[in-house]
């Protein structure tokens, strides 16, 4: 159900997700550029990146192409997204170069990684989301928001990198995200009154630390002083963020997340695999709230740590406990693709709910939040299906276990990014060399093209991103 903003009488918009949660969001003057009035304002463009590990079953994922790019039929795995077909673009056959094994690190950076021995995999560059966040620094209270579901905290699990070797770890606790968005740090917060109390306490703590009368700096050498200054400057940064959030939170209504059921000394609630679906719902709501309230314009939502993901899905019909998500992706090699297909279809359902949420927010200019957003559905690997199955390594007696494919990446885009993307299309991109041999090997155009296209769609004129060796420009025909 969609509620439309009707003039000045109703200053609240409604978000009604399919899980039945209702959020009411106030109309935000501060969201608008200063020169614009409510009626004619152009909403800012937003980026939301949804990332799954473990690839997919390619031949049960790829849509069937029709006579033109606007005629296509969604596959079994993508069928839950049927209702959003007019708002999506399928981008097929891109390839991640410089990538092998665990690909979160290279996924949004467009670089290969520095291997300090798994799981210490370090990025060689900045990721797309952080690059945008740095461009937008100071515009919104939080430059970017990184959300995770059961996200393993290791380097290989990081999708976001604020620069070479600087991972930005996704926050897997919806309760901490909620508290942060409300300006209360990560403490459990029951309501906005408590958030206020915590905020005031945190201010006192920060004021004590930042005491200008402190004699510490005077006792330090210049290099040491710079290091301590960096710390104190970051403390000041937290203070600024708190103030900006406080102002924004006043005008924003948050989804109810309840109190954190975790017990000290035990595995946190949100890290428990059984709670992953509920945690995902909360993170989804918080992601949409943060974008709708203009707390940030860049959000990543990562569905677990990378390849090593040990999430299990025995709560889904037809999925056994025999393997975890990662294990089922390897099962595809042995010919068993049924369980991975079920898991992937379930994720398509969850993605469809996220698109529902974005559609149900109506902005002051009368358009949905989805229309000014670019939602990229990203995957760590290319398909694991029959079309890229690698033959055994003869002589070794072993199957080649390069299941973690970097070719034929299964990208989806939702939303029009403020009109820069024409949706309802299936882009089947050519391979680098279209010979029969190359098709079977699947050497596609570089996925860095997609990173460039996303920047272009959001109004940035960049012509390359990531490894300059793969600076091929943008995805042909995607933007504009």
């Amino acid at each position, binding site marked *: 159900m969609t509620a439309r903003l009707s003039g000045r009488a109703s200053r609240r918009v409604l978000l009604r997700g399919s899980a039945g949660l209702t959020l009411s969001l106030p109309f935000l003057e501060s969201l608008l550029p200063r020169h614009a009035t409510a009626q004619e304002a152009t909403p800012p463009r937003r980026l939301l990146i949804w990332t799954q590990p473990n690839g997919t079953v390619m031949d049960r994922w790829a849509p069937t192409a029709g006579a033109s790019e606007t005629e296509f039929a969604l596959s079994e795995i993508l069928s839950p997204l049927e209702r959003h077909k007019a708002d999506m673009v399928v981008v097929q056959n891109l390839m991640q170069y*410089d990538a092998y094994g665990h690909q979160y690190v290279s996924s949004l950076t467009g670089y*290969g990684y520095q291997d*300090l*021995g*798994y*799981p*210490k995999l370090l990025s060689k560059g900045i990721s797309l989301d952080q690059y945008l966040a740095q461009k937008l620094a100071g515009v919104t209270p939080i430059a970017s928001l990184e959300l995770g579901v059961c996200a393993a905290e*290791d380097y290989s699990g990081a999708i976001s990198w*604020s620069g070479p070797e600087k*991972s*930005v*770890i996704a926050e897997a606790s919806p309760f*901490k995200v909620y508290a*942060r968005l409300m300006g209360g*740090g*990560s*403490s459990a917060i029951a309501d906005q009154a408590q958030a206020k109390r*915590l905020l005031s*306490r*945190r201010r*006192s*703590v920060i*004021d*004590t*630390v930042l*005491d200008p009368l*402190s*004699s*510490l700096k*005077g*006792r*330090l*050498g*210049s*290099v*040491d002083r*710079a*290091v*301590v200054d*960096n*710390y*104190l400057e*970051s*403390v000041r*940064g*937290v203070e600024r963020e708190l103030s900006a959030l406080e102002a924004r939170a006043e005008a924003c209504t948050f989804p109810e997340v309840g109190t954190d059921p975790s017990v*000290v000394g035990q595995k946190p609630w949100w890290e428990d695999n059984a709670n992953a679906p509920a945690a995902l719902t909360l993170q989804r709501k918080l992601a949409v709230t943060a974008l709708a309230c203009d707390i940030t314009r860049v959000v990543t939502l990562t569905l677990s740590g990378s*390849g*090593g993901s040990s999430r299990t899905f025995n709560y889904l019909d037809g999925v056994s406990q025999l393997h975890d998500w*990662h*294990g089922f992706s*390897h099962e595809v090699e*042995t010919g068993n693709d049924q369980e991975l297909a079920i898991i992937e279809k379930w994720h398509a359902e969850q993605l469809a709910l996220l698109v529902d949420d974005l559609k149900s927010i109506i902005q002051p200019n009368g358009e949905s939040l989805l229309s000014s957003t670019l939602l990229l559905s990203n995957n760590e690997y290319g398909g694991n299906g029959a079309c890229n199955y690698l033959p055994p*390594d003869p*002589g070794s007696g*072993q*199957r080649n*276990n390069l299941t973690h494919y970097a070719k034929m990446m299964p990208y989806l885009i939702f939303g029009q990014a403020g009109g820069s993307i024409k949706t309802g299309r299936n882009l089947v991109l050519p391979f680098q060399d279209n010979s029969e041999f190359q098709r079977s090997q699947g050497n596609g155009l570089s996925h860095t093209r997609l990173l460039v296209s996303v920047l272009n769609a959001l109004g940035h004129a960049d012509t390359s991103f990531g*490894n300059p*060796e793969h600076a091929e420009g943008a995805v042909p025909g995607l933007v504009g």
Partner: protein
Amino acid sequence: MTRLSSSALWGIALAGLAAVACEGSPSSEHAPGSAGQGTGGSGATGAPSPIPAGFLPSQALGAGPVRRLTRAEYRNIVRELFNVEPPASQALPDDSLSSGFTSTAGQLVTIASVSRYLDAASDVASRLEPSLRSAIPCNSTEPAGESACIEQYLTSLGPRLFRRPLAADEKARYVNAFAKARTTQSYEQSASLMLEALLVAPEFLFVEVPSGASSGAKRPLDGWQVASRLSLLLWDSIPDAALSSAAEQGQLTSAAALHEQLERLLQSERARAPLRSFFDDWLGLTKIEGLVRDAAVYPSVTPSLLGDLAAESRAFVDDVLWQGKDFRRLFVSPARFRSPALSAFYGDGLGQGAELARYEAEVSERSFGLLSQAGFLMTLAQAEKSAAIHRGAFLRRKLLCGALPPPPPGVATPLPELTAGVSKRQRISEHTSSGACAACHRTFNDLGFTLDHFDIAGQWRDQDEGLPIDSKVTFDEPGLTGEIDGARQLSEALAQSPNARACVLQQLFTFTLERAPTSADQLLFDDLGRKFEASGFDLQSALTGLIESEDFRTRVEPEGSAP
């Protein structure tokens, strides 16, 4: 003092490269000729140094700036100070591997990491809050009286929290924070707010010490600072009462006075875990549990087996450090650690008990030391195709301290496809023999080939891809000459290699003094080498030597611009 050039004494035997590096690579300045000559002294004893000439790189990396507590230190300190469960490790800002060892040095702080410190402090303080009336007793209910109680508490807490007594202005700042909060909040709430602020104070989070000295200036540490270095190094925590009292009495500023405390801390059980972390970081043993092998190809490699393999390698390095007291035993030792699962995996009949236990066995081709331990071997290579390359690079970098730059961008091309009758070794040799690749690969591929009898699950094999394994290699470098066939012979050569011994000293130096040694440290290093040799290569004695060195009790003000 007469200075004998160590290269003059050792030069003939060690002709050629000391620490092998790639020709023409950015790191080739590590090679002799640019370093070591003339700086290598013989020290006071006049005995030759066992450290190969030119082993230490010449470039001065300089002293590091102040560093923050590591996660382990933060958690131990909170537990010890307040007797509460500390925040989870992942809730704290990450440690980086600085110079190969876990440290926060050089890690910039971001808003996100400050938020983690703030959250952790808030978490600890709010859990302490209910008990603060009894933890900080106070008879008075008057503002002045309460402030006096708080000040008294800070006087007793300070030396442990800031690892030195609090200055008057510091105490005043926190008493004021309490008093200000107390105007609207309860005694407990106000005291907990003050503790929260103390836990994010830079004086708590940053380890090193204010000095105000100019760049490059050397300055002896005071007793408190030495005590703090010592306990953070050996216990990952703050000084205990005896060490604090030694610090307070102004002891610890000489090697002799330090010795007693050092021995006490070193021989305590509490030193086990922090010193194990030396091996964990150096040899990458922490990676064993997290390994993933394709279950269809290596069905025996289960998470439970990996746990046992990690325990095996850890027990083994502990054995080298505490029982064997001989570094050479890292490479060749009769000690075996077996659980029932390990016994089945290795198939050597050892390990009849229910638990992991120590056995002794003959040194054989398949079982001889670290380089035959499956868990460790598995950490070195993920794929059969390139296993020799990754193994060789690790051995060159970590066990021989050779400088290898990462491959230049764009050359990480896949190995050529399989041709019948051509072995992996031939393919790797062919593929890496051209100009740009050869400069580095020639320094480490061969090391890797000697391990070819072990597959990537660490299990012995006689054939690969239907071809017999060829693990024979001819070396021509200092301490590693002539024909070596297989990992056992390589291990025997490494146990005798001056470069491997110098390398472990370099690793231990970096771990202990938190900076990499350079040729400017030649005198200390030579001295250390002699002591190491005289002790029969006892790592504890090398560690003691480092801690008793003047460098341990000295802070060199870092030079140059800040990071």
